């Protein structure tokens, strides 16, 4: 047996050598399938891949242009709100509010932007199929930045620095046509956001130690987090939806969170998102996709709304999750402990008998809740290694 499998065998048996190497530390036993599931949450960081739908993806000049735009409040109609007003780097590019408030109140929690480049559908409802269209959306939403295509284009044309950065990115100064200029602005914004990535976490160190059979390295992972991980891939089966290196399947589910947005008003979630992405002029089937092969548009070509999508919302990534409170599409759960309690005491009355069949109340003890929270907290990088880091 090589070293790797020797290490795995030790973990499966439930013994982890202590950090000093002298004393074994009792830990949860992982079955072989659980070990495979844990290894599937890495490696991290993943390799860079540029976005073929965005011709300036990965281009340094465009990344810098995008960062400049991201922090420029003039892109909003009254000149008061920038993208960065709601997407704050110390909070993993969220705002800490239950629901976002741009020029007016919105119905949804601000999603973080770290690792956003790895998504297939964007937003809580997946109403966009690419990052540049998703970046254009808040510029035009009257509740967020309140502009329009003409306003966005005019801001770039009117400022010498922005005009020069535009020329540097796209090879020509901004034209007189508003729509292509505004879409290019969105593509520069996307190029910048593609660089936002979470750093390595205590979990990643554990996972990689496990992969290489490094018992001492694995033993540095705190016991509560290890027990929480055992719940995550075991009794809780959380990894059925929160899977892979990003801890998300990238899809949409109904987890029993009420979705009234106000009296007599519902947030239809993914059901409306499917309608919008199919209708969008800025989807990957549309004229602004720089991927002439349209291979990037396959999912959009086939996506169709189902009844079950009504009230479904994104399965968010769990990376950096400790920094993105409050939680859920409407920010209705204040802390990670509240989130774990939600799954522990799941209100089955909210779930269809043939809907989310995996969901059953976990009935966790207080100690188990503590452990699961400890595990979730271990998915955040240290502040110095956090999502302000660039991925390239």
């Amino acid at each position, binding site marked *: 047996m090589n070293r790797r499998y020797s290490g795995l065998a030790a973990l499966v048996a439930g013994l982890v050598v202590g950090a000093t190497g002298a004393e074994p530390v009792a830990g949860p036993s992982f079955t072989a399938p659980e070990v495979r599931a844990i290894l599937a949450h890495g490696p991290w960081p993943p390799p860079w891949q540029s976005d073929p739908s965005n011709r300036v993806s990965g281009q340094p000049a465009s990344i810098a242009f995008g960062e400049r735009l991201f922090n420029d409040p003039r892109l909003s109609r009254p000149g008061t709100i920038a993208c960065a007003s709601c997407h704050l780097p110390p909070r993993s590019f969220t705002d800490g509010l239950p629901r976002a408030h741009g020029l007016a109140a919105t119905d949804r929690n601000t999603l973080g932007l770290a690792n956003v480049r790895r998504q297939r559908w964007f937003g809580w409802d997946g109403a966009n199929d690419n990052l540049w269209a998703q970046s254009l959306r808040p510029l035009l939403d009257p509740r967020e930045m309140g502009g329009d295509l003409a306003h966005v284009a005019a801001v770039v044309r009117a400022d010498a620095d922005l005009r020069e950065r535009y020329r540097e990115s796209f090879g020509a100064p901004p034209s007189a046509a508003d729509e292509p200029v505004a879409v290019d602005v969105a593509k520069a914004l996307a190029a910048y956001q593609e660089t936002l990535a979470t750093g390595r976490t205590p979990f990643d160190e554990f996972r990689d130690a496990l992969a290489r059979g490094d018992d001492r390295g694995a033993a540095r992972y705190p016991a509560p987090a290890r027990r929480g991980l055992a719940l995550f891939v075991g009794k809780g089966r959380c990894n059925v939806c929160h899977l892979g290196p990003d801890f998300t399947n990238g899809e949409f589910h109904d987890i029993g969170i*009420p*979705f*009234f947005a106000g*009296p*007599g*008003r*519902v947030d*239809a979630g993914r*059901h409306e998102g499917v309608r919008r992405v199919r209708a969008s002029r800025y989807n990957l089937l549309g004229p602004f996709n720089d991927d002439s092969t349209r291979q990037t548009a396959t999912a959009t070509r086939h996506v*169709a*709304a*189902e*009844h*079950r999508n*009504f*009230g479904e919302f994104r399965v968010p990534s769990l990376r950096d999750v400790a920094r993105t409170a409050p939680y859920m599409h409407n920010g209705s759960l204040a802390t990670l402990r509240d989130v774990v309690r939600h799954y522990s005491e799941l209100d*089955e*009355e*909210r779930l*269809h*008998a*043939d809907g989310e069949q995996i969901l059953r109340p976990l009935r966790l003890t207080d100690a188990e809740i503590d452990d699961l929270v400890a595990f979730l907290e271990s998915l955040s990088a240290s502040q110095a290694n956090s999502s302000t880091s660039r991925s390239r």
Partner: protein
Amino acid sequence: MARPAATATRVDSAMRAALAPARRLLAIVAAPAALSLGLPAAAAELPIFDAHIHYSHDAWDNLPPKDAVAILRKAGLKRAVVSSSGDDGTQRLVSEAPDLVVPSLRPYRRRSEVTTWARDDTVAAFLEERLARSRYAAIGEFHVYGADADLPVPRRLVALAKQHRLVLHAHSDADAIERLFRQDPEARILWAHSGFDRPDTVREMLKKHPRLWCDLAFRSEQGAAGKVPAEWRALFTEFPDRFMVGTDTFTPERWHYIVEHAHWSRAWLADLPPALAERIAWRNGEALFAGWTPGPGK
């Protein structure tokens, strides 16, 4: 798809027998109703008989009966089979719109009893008390699977349905449907969601059980993008009298989906021959529940 003549004769004659009382009442009730039900301005739209509505406890406060009925009418529903957890919800809607609501008695006081009712000895007394107090067209929607259908509580439910001549609205797998029919071969069963089974399984069940009807609630595949796939088209054509649509308002929010669901249903039904579309949209529901007449409670 053509079907063997022998099968057609057997199915049609059995169904005619099953619906004989219904047909007599249909002539009295349904025709005048079409003129007097106060269908909305969009009456030119295909009317819908929605076979799967719940008005459960968590909907009552934020959607009072008047508002709930307004949604049903806005959707252009001709009638709606309503069952609720608990039954007071159904009674409130019946009082508000007796012309519109076809009441069904659900064996749940709260929706969470979905998973416990079949082993809850208090359920039989609850059903008996309700049946003594109010009039119903059906019992259900209830959830029972496999051998659980033969437990004492479901058996009592089937017996009560037989005694009161009520349709059984069963959210079940095919095995449980077989068991329910063994308990009462003369039962009329509305199979919720068509069991979420594949068309070939549904076909076998419909062939075998002439007193089985299917609702299509919470299923999307038969009408995605307004087109009926070949396998469903064949099934609808082979059994034109056995299917009906339904929304399934299993949470309060889903009441705000009823109108869109009706539009969605009309879109895919338009892909079928008009006569067949009408049957699935409302005629089959009207026929199955024609024995129900609005009127004062017991």
